[in-house]
Each structure stands twice: as C-alpha cells, then as structure tokens.
C-alpha cells in the first residue's frame, strides 16, 4: 500500500546526518551556510508549509513542459516570429542574452541550498529549485536555438556571458555577487526574496503581458511558465527571513536593502526600456513605473511591514529614481547603440512621446531636450553626431553609467576612497552599498577602468567594441532605421 504524502513527508524532509567523521564546520562551512551566530535550534523553525514531493513535482512540471513545447512548435510552424514588430523583437534578444545564463547561475545557487543550507528542510526544497533553474536555462536555449535561423542575435543566449559587452557585465556582476558568491542566507534574502519574489514579476509577468499583446505567443507563454516556478521557489526566502528576524534582523535589513536597490538599477536597464520604449505603443499594458508600483513596491512594502523591517533609508530617492532612471538608461542605451547586441527602438515618435508625458509628467522637461537634439541631427543628415565617440564613466557598484540613476538635475558626484583608490558611483545609494562593505566591491575594474588602464586596445570606440565581442551582424542600430524621425522634419519648402 502506498503511504499518503502527509505520512512520510515530514520524515523525509527532516532526515539529516549526525556527523561523526568530520566536524560540522568542515561539512557545512560558515562561508557557505551563512549561519554565523544563529543557533542550530533556530533553524528547526525554518518551515515552508507547501509540500513538494518529487512525484508531484515531476507530474506538474511535465504538464508545463508539454504545454510550452506544444505552443512553441505551433507558433514556429505558423511563422509568427517573422511577423513580429522589430521593436518588440529587440526585447526578446535583450532578454535571452541577459537572462539565459543568469538562470544557469541560479542552478549553482540552488545547488548550494541543496548542499549547504543550514536545515534539511531547506536543502530538500533546494533540489526542486535547482531542477527549476535547469529547466529555465534549457527553455531559453531551446527557444533561442529555434529562432537562430532568423536572427544571429539569438546566439547571444549562450554567447553573451562569454563576452565583455558592458550591459552583460553589469548583469553578471550583480548575480556573481548575490547568486554565485553569496552564502545560503544572503542568497535567500537577496535573490529568492528580493529578486525572485519581487522583481521577476516585472520581467516575467509584465513583459509576458506585453509580449502577448504584441502577438509573441511563444515567448509570452515561455515567460509565464517560468514564472510559475519562480513564484514557488522564491518562497525559500520567507522562512529564512523569519529566522533572521529572530536572531539577526540587522543583517536581513541590510542584505535586502542593498539587493533592492541593485535590482532596481538592473531592471531599469533591462525591463524599463523594453516596456516603455520597445513595446509598440498600442500594445503597451502598463508603464514600467505603474507596474513597479503595483507589483514590486506594494509587495515589498508589505513584506517589510509584515516581518518588522523598516523601509530603506533611501525610499524617497528610490521613488525619484523610479520616475527617471530607466529613461536615462534608455537614452544611454540608444545613444551607445553600437555597444548593444540588440536594436533598440528610440520610442520617441510624437505619439509615443505623448504617452511618455502622460505616464511621466516630468519626462519632457528631463529628457525631451536631448531627444530633440538627436532628432535635429538625424534630420540634418548628421548621423555622426548621434553616435558616441567614447565610453561613459561607470559606477563601481552597479557598473551602469554615472548620471543614469536619477533625473538630469541630480549629477553631484558620489565618490569613496578606499585603500588609496577612488571609486565612483551612480548615486549616493550605490555609494552607501559600497561603504557598507568596501572589501566586497573594491579591486574590481569596470569597463572604463580597464579602458583607462590600457587593457582595451586600441584605445578607441572600435577597440572597445571589439573587446566587447560586438560583430557587425549583431551590433545595435535603430530598430526602425530612423524612419520615426521624419515626422519632426521641417516641411520641405520647394
């Protein structure tokens, strides 16, 4: 007779070793568990009440898998990809290049939970997280492989993380930190709770809705299917936070506050432009800010309050950044388009601009002037003036351009000196992250540091592009070949 799950589940997930050949510290080193001074007994309270058995897991995942495959195959046969709007397609290139390998990094993080988490219950759940992330990597690779014949940019699903493309390096830098190098406790707070529970909603729910509206059923469906796993394994963060609130609330507050800001900056780079500029106007659902407020800010505030944490000191600045940061990033991405492996849509036609001003009342005042100049240069045939000649200075924490975190009025430098070296930041929030734990970030050379140190040769934009692995077949250019600018041209008098 088969036992009911409830009859064996607790025994199976509480199964643990009594170590006799090696010391606890050898089998479960502090540097990986992150237990620090939290007593062993405290971890017995770690509980995720939703029960996952291997049998149930396989059954549910198998259903999801056949669903994704069926839709993918049907869309491929129907030739849907070839009919998509070029501006939207860029969002898929950007996603695959910057996300596929992050899924793979997450396999390593979840494997660390399986092996080193401070309680067998958590180690048990880590197994499913690890399988989830393996699935996500494979799904992204298969999706990209299927579309490779239509666009070499899908090669970047695998290639991107083996290049030095600056945006990819910014993504990698963050996830190296909170996935690959963090102990279990910090990874659960920074990645599971902050990134997976909060921010992935933007990439996987909001963007999925936009993709569906844009007719990209295959990608939308893939994103939604991945999100069901994220939502489940992100839950590993909550019992961890619960334990920390009892024994080390200060560590929890700090890890979450740092991860929240760094995630904000990253999603302003990856998702903000995709939602507010690349998604064709009539297919936009919510603005990036609206979605952030509803899905990330509200949830985050509720979690902080429920668990007894405070709002980060920088909350007002964060809200100011929410109004601006992704517009600044978008302007920079478009201007430095040869440094991208996707074709960004400028997204500032008259109608689009009206939408931007409605969603962001300060948009015109902050960003309109820059775009007007770019438009005037395009219409005067001076394309050379719309292209960069050098690289922007970058932040030593986020790896993103200085001046891209707030409005154009907030350009005071944020600087720290540590062990004789000067570090620069995109905001005083990033500086605060650095100052909390300088040894963690110090020594790292960002792209511009390397450029100045002569590590990138020849020392020109062309040398930089080659170093970043950007080849002409994928190099970024305006998604619509600048046709959108024509409506601004002064009427021809003849």
């Amino acid at each position, binding site marked *: 007779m088969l036992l009911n799950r409830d009859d064996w589940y607790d025994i199976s997930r509480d199964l643990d070793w009594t170590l006799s050949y090696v010391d606890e510290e050898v089998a479960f080193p502090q540097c990986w568990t992150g237990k620090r001074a939290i007593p062993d007994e405290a971890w017995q309270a770690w509980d995720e009440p939703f*029960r996952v058995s291997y049998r149930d897991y396989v059954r549910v995942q198998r259903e999801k898998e056949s669903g994704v495959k069926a839709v993918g195959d049907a869309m491929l046969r129907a030739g849907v990809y070839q009919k998509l709007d070029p501006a939207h397609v860029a969002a898929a290139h950007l996603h695959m290049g910057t996300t596929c390998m992050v899924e793979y990094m997450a396999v390593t993080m979840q494997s660390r939970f399986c092996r080193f988490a401070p309680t067998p219950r958590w180690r048990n759940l880590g197994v499913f997280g690890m399988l989830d992330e393996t699935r996500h990597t494979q799904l992204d690779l298969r999706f990209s492989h299927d579309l490779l014949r239509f666009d070499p940019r899908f090669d970047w699903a695998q290639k991107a993380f083996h290049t030095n493309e600056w945006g990819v390096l910014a993504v990698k830098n963050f996830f190296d930190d909170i996935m690959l190098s963090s102990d279990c406790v910090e990874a659960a707070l920074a990645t599971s709770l902050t990134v997976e529970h909060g921010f992935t909603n933007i990439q996987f729910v909001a963007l999925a809705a936009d993709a569906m509206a844009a007719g990209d059923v295959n990608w939308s469906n893939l994103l939604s299917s991945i999100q*069901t796993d994220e939502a489940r394994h992100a839950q590993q963060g909550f019992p961890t936070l619960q334990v920390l609130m009892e024994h080390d609330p200060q560590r929890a507050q700090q890890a979450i506050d740092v991860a929240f800001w760094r995630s904000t900056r990253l999603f302003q780079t990856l998702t903000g432009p995709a939602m507010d500029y690349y998604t064709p106007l009539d297919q936009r659902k919510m603005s990036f800010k609206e979605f952030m407020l509803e899905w990330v800010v509200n949830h985050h505030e509720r979690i902080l309050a429920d668990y007894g944490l405070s709002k980060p000191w920088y909350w007002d600045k964060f809200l100011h950044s929410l109004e601006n940061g992704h517009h600044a990033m978008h302007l920079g991405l478009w201007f430095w388009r040869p440094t991208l492996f996707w074709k960004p849509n400028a997204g500032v036609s008259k109608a689009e601009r009206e939408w931007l001003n409605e969603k962001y009342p300060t948009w015109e005042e902050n960003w309109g002037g820059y775009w007007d100049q770019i438009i005037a240069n395009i219409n005067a045939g001076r394309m050379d003036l719309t292209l960069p000649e050098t690289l922007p200075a970058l932040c030593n924490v986020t790896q993103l351009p200085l001046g891209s975190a707030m409005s154009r009025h907030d350009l005071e430098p944020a600087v720290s000196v540590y062990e004789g070296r000067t570090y620069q930041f995109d905001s005083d929030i990033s500086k605060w992250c650095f100052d909390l734990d300088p040894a963690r970030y110090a020594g790292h050379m960002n792209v511009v540091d390397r450029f100045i140190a002569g590590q990138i040769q020849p020392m020109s934009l062309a040398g930089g592009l080659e170093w970043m692995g950007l080849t002409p077949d994928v190099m970024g250019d305006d998604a619509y070949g600048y046709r959108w600018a024509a409506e601004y041209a002064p009427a021809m008098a003849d």
Partner: protein
Amino acid sequence: MFCSVAEPLPEQFVAVAAEDELWDGEMASYEIDGSEVLLLRLDGEYRAYNGECPHQSTPLVEGELDGYTLTCRTHEWSFDARTGAGLNPAMARLRRHEVRLSDGCVWVSRSEERGIRS
C-alpha cells in the same frame, strides 16, 4: 440583478447570481461589501469562500478548478473545493460563506461562517 425574495432571508444575505449561472465544475467571483467572494458549483451544489488565497492574496478565481481540487495559480497551494480544507499545505483553509438558494437566485452571506471546521 434583481431578486425579489419569496421567503425573506436574514439581512446578511446578498443575491450574487442566478441559480443557473454556473455550470457544474465552474467558479466565478463576486464582490460583496468590497471584498471578493468565490462561488463554486460542484455536483449541482453551490459553495462560497473568501475569494483571496490565504497565502498571499491572489484571487482564487484565477486559479484552476480540477474536479474537487482548487489550485491557486501563484504558488500552487491547493484546497478541497467541497470543504475549503487545505490539501497542500494541510494547515491552510479557505474561509467559507454560507450559501442559500431562494427565488431562483444564489444568496451568499456577507460574513464568513464562524466555527466551521472542515
């Protein structure tokens, strides 16, 4: 919808749907006094529960009703749709609202039932 009451029901009951509005195995949600109530029809009988998932408040109507199992779409918490009892996790439970049929309509109590142990 207008429902005149043949035999007057206590005041806390609100008519939410016509008696034939749902097919067997279907669910729908209605707002009563600003909160969402989930109505289900199983084996011809109606049941009503608080419409928000007890985990993190996802509207249950967006989930899936498969036989007698109601699964929330967000983290797959599942419930026995007949009783509201948690299947996974077992410690969870949906809060029930009393249902009455009268005058061709489904009437749902504004307040959750107290002391119901399923």
